């Protein structure tokens, strides 16, 4: 079953590549929907409270070295697998008919889904690394060949070099862990977790893996590749890039860094370093979002800020913080994907991504404005929608770790409405100093004359198409669902593949 979750997209990609172009979208959509259905089936059957992997598949691969093809899910990875499947469906849906070289595009997106699903499903460290690298290849091509702007190649190169550095560090880490992990000589993650190396070695490995994952997340100050890459990537790519790819870093942080290296101590206990970086990311990302003119960059930096919450939650090392972080991975994935889609749609209609050139679009696109409003509110952490739950839990975790961390991180909560509302209001509502007539006011005054008809035809133009609405509706529904009933996700987190250093009850 788990193999199918990553193999179906691969098969889909092959089919897309081989079949004629007019079948591309239906084939791609079909494959991603099957993957989603499989993931949902796993979610329904997952047993909460179970210790150890579920739906395990374990086949020896290189037995001499203790490498096996070992997949499994638990209450953490399940939600990321689902997120991955859902966002891929959305990405294929919005890829639409306008994308050039559509076959290759959809095939690569499906390949990326396969790679990322593998990362979340792998129960073997080397297998994890293989998938980790595999996702990078389609990502690079998507960015290079379909990038927007003047120099997409440069953005792609930057991205690859940056993550390549991380990958190499991680590879060294994988080998080091194999050699030093309590003499276990295996890549099986659960076994490795039970046999951590000596604290100074842990510290070294923590740094190697930590850098790799921090670049992927990205965590302040390793987010340098992000503005260029996100500015260059087209909307469907961003759905998977920002929505899922960063989460592979977050997931790896929780599973590998805290799971395999419970005491990375050398000379001193470095516990506060990553939470502080998370805290700085929250504030810095928010501040940078304030300064941006480009719609996409505002969203990109808001992502830096929100990823800060995830890093903070994972490394405050308590249950509320870490469960909040997992929740926030899903929340952020859904929200950022929706935001990038909306921003891309707005930019396509207005013909510019410059915030200062946009104003007063709401009358022409009331439905888009309404959806944008809800997504904006979710992004700024409105209680009642999904992001609030994750932020509340991570901050509560931070408070229990060190109250000042939570207090300073709250700066992100205060700045989020400032930059999000500037973004939303700036595009949708009246601009600085304007006193416009109410839309359609003259039509009402003139009764049902020709004026009314003219005013009636205006709003229809430029609003969300049915296809666009179909793509974004599931995301909005998830925002409400998690906001109203977060325990749906949290209760499954009682099922863990292997115990974390801080037990979850």
């Amino acid at each position, binding site marked *: 079953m788990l193999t199918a979750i990553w193999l179906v997209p691969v098969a889909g990609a092959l089919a897309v590549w081989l079949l004629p172009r007019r079948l591309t979208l239906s084939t791609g959509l079909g494959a991603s929907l099957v993957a989603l259905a499989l993931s949902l089936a796993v979610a329904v059957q997952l047993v909460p409270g179970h210790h150890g992997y579920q739906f395990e598949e374990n086949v020896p691969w290189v037995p001499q070295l203790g490498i096996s093809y070992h997949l499994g899910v638990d209450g953490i990875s399940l939600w990321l697998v689902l997120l991955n499947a859902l966002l891929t469906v959305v990405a294929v849906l919005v890829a639409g008919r306008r994308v050039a070289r559509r076959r290759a595009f959809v095939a690569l997106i499906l390949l990326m889904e396969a790679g990322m699903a593998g990362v979340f499903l792998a129960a073997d460290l080397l297998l994890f690394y293989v998938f980790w690298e595999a996702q990078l290849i389609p990502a690079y091509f998507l960015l290079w060949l379909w990038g927007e702007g003047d120099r997409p*190649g440069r953005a792609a*190169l*930057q*991205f690859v*070099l*940056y993550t390549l*550095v991380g990958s190499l560090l991680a*590879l*060294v880490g994988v*080998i*080091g862990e194999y050699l030093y992990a309590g003499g276990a000589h295996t890549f099986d993650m659960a076994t490795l977790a039970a046999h951590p190396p000596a604290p100074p070695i842990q510290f070294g490995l923590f740094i190697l893996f930590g850098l790799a994952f921090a670049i992927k997340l990205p965590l302040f100050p390793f*987010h340098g*590749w992000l*503005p*260029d890459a996100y500015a260059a990537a087209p909307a469907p790519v961003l759905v998977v890039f920002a929505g899922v790819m960063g989460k592979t870093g977050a997931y790896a942080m929780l599973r590998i860094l805290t799971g395999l290296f419970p005491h990375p101590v050398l000379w001193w206990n470095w516990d506060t370093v990553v939470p502080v970086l998370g805290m700085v990311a929250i504030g810095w990302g928010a*501040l*940078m979002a304030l*300064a941006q003119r480009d719609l996409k960059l505002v969203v990109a930096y808001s992502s830096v800020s929100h990823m800060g919450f995830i890093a903070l939650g994972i490394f405050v090392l*308590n249950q*509320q913080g870490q469960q909040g972080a997992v929740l926030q991975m899903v929340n952020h994935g859904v929200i950022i994907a929706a935001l990038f889609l909306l921003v891309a749609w707005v930019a396509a209609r207005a013909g510019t991504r410059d915030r200062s050139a946009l104003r007063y679009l*709401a*009358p022409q696109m*009331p*439905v888009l404005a*309404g959806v944008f409003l809800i997504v904006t509110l979710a992004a*700024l952490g*409105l*209680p*009642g929608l999904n992001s609030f739950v994750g932020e*509340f839990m991570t*901050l*509560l975790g931070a408070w*229990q770790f060190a109250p000042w961390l*939570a207090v300073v991180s*709250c700066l992100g*909560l*205060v*700045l989020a*409405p*400032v930059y999000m*509302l500037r973004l939303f*209001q700036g595009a949708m*509502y*009246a601009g600085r100093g304007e*006193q*416009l007539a*109410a839309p*359609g*006011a003259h*039509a*009402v005054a003139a009764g049902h004359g020709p004026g009314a008809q003219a*005013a009636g035809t205006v*709003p229809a133009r430029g609003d969300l198409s049915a296809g666009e609405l179909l793509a974004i509706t599931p995301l909005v529904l998830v925002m409400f669902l998690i906001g109203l*009933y*977060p*325990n749906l996700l*949290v*209760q499954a987190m009682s099922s863990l593949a292997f115990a974390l250093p801080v037990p*979850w*009850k």
Partner: protein
Amino acid sequence: MPLQAITLVILALPAAGSAALGLGALKVPRRLVQVVGPGTVWVAFLCSLVLFMDQFANGGKPHDFTYWTWLSSGALQVPVDLFVDRLSVFMCLVVTGVGGLIVTYSNGYMEHETDGSYARFFCYMDLFITSMLLLVLAGNLVLLIVGWAGVGLSSYLLIGFFYWRWSAVVAARKAFVMNVIGDVGMILGTFVLFAAYHSVTYRGIFAALPRTDSPLLELAAFLFLVGAVAKSAQLPLHTWLPDAMEGPTPVSALIHAATMVTAGVYLVGRLHPVYDLAWAAHGAVALIGAVTALFAASIAIVQTDIKRVLAYSTMSQIGYMFLAVGVGAYAAGFFHLMAHAFFKALLFLGAGNVIHAMNDEQDMRRYGGLWGQMRGTSICFLVGSLSLAGIIPFVGFWSKEVVLGDAFSKPDPSGFPQAMWAIGFATAVLTGFYTGRMWWMAFAGRPSPERPVSRPHEAQAVMMVPVVVLAVLSTVGGFLQINAGFHPGWKLIEDWLTPTFGPLPWQARDLEYFPTAATLLLAGLAFWPIADAFYRRRVWSVWSERLPFLQRLLERKYYLDELYDLLFVRPMDAAAESGDHLLEAPVIDAAPTGVAMTARGSAGILSLAENGLFRTYVLVMLGAALVGLVILLVVRG
């Protein structure tokens, strides 16, 4: 239907109405909007009456209805539970009753909007009522925060309703951000209580409270006070409220009278076991209230926009409520909350009638002479004005007297409650003055030559009926509790709330109500003749002409907006800009470019990229892996 279901219906019905109107905003016919919008609120009112009967019959035994588990993470257990006691039922009745009148009134007031806007308006109004009901019914702090933020959201939506006006757009954003500052206070306060008592439900926390004060409790109480101050527009987080007048007038009525701004008072009342222990924070509540009351009243004196006068009077009256709950006279505070809901809704809706008739003109100097032309509205507005000024027998008199009398008679060697009383007393005089000024300028005398409409028409029935109902309530509502004037008279409000708050811990004596009754006298004096002499007959030259500095200081609202802009807004933008230019762009963002450059320079990757970067990448990866392996083997050996 069991009580548990009825309680849920109170919330679910306006929520469903709001959702339906929001989803169908572009298609729902206006007739249906007119039914769904107010209808859901009125049904919620009926359900609240059922709860009222239950609370009446069972002597005030609270219910805690749990529906589902919202979140369960280790020690953090958050149920979705609604808490029904005397206080929450009291609030529900005020919110749905007065709110229902206001939403009904909007049917007429918003008639000039397009169909889409019309539905959107009622969607937001119902959302507002839902959030406020959730706020008062929530049985734990997290749910309280959800309602709390929902109120902030709906105020944002309604203040910015006329999104084609820039001023409305910024006013809405300001309200939202200020409210989020309050939300953060609430969230941190919740953390403090959870870390100390491992619970977020009222019951759990109150059961675990210690018997004596502690720094932790003070911290929590102060953090919740931040939330209360932001929501109730008290100093220093008040600047959003006057700007909130950008919303349509029924919105102002809803924000100011029945919902939102009273939330802070409710919060202090709901957390009274905490505030009873945390004496410093409790004193701060009273102090902030008293100072805000005086501060806002002084600004109200110079405002010329009729809605802004009412806005500052709201701040001032909420200050009285803070004063009352701050000295521990909870029932008095909530009596004034109810009284204020009646007369402030009346004043705003009355003002709405006038503004509607005057083609949206809001400057009082351009009114004048309405007494003869809009007699019904004028009479109702007069009732509201007299009530606001605290003149017998209107409801404002009774409630304000109880607030001041209870504060004055509280035994305290430090004399703190008496000092609060003195500030409240001074405010009462100012209140009489600015209310009189408003009345004389807007309604009496001859029509202003600048008046936009020479022959205004009286409001239609759907607007007039709620106004008249509120006028009646403002006239007779005070007789629910008459112990301020006739001691010992009956005190139904206090008795109703006793199961929640307990009896007033000190005995208010007959004689000690007496000095406070002087407010009645002085306020009345200031109200009629003095303001009349100043503004209509110009017996004395207007004081402000002699003191231009003071006039300007008040007109600019003590320059607090400018100060905040200077202290917070500009530095924030400057930090963002300079951070982007000095650190983000040249260092962090440039780092990967630097890597690329170096790589290009040393290995000529550029040309390799053209040949196929992928191959290079694989080679580099394998090479580095080998190097790493070798290093590790060497280290190990």
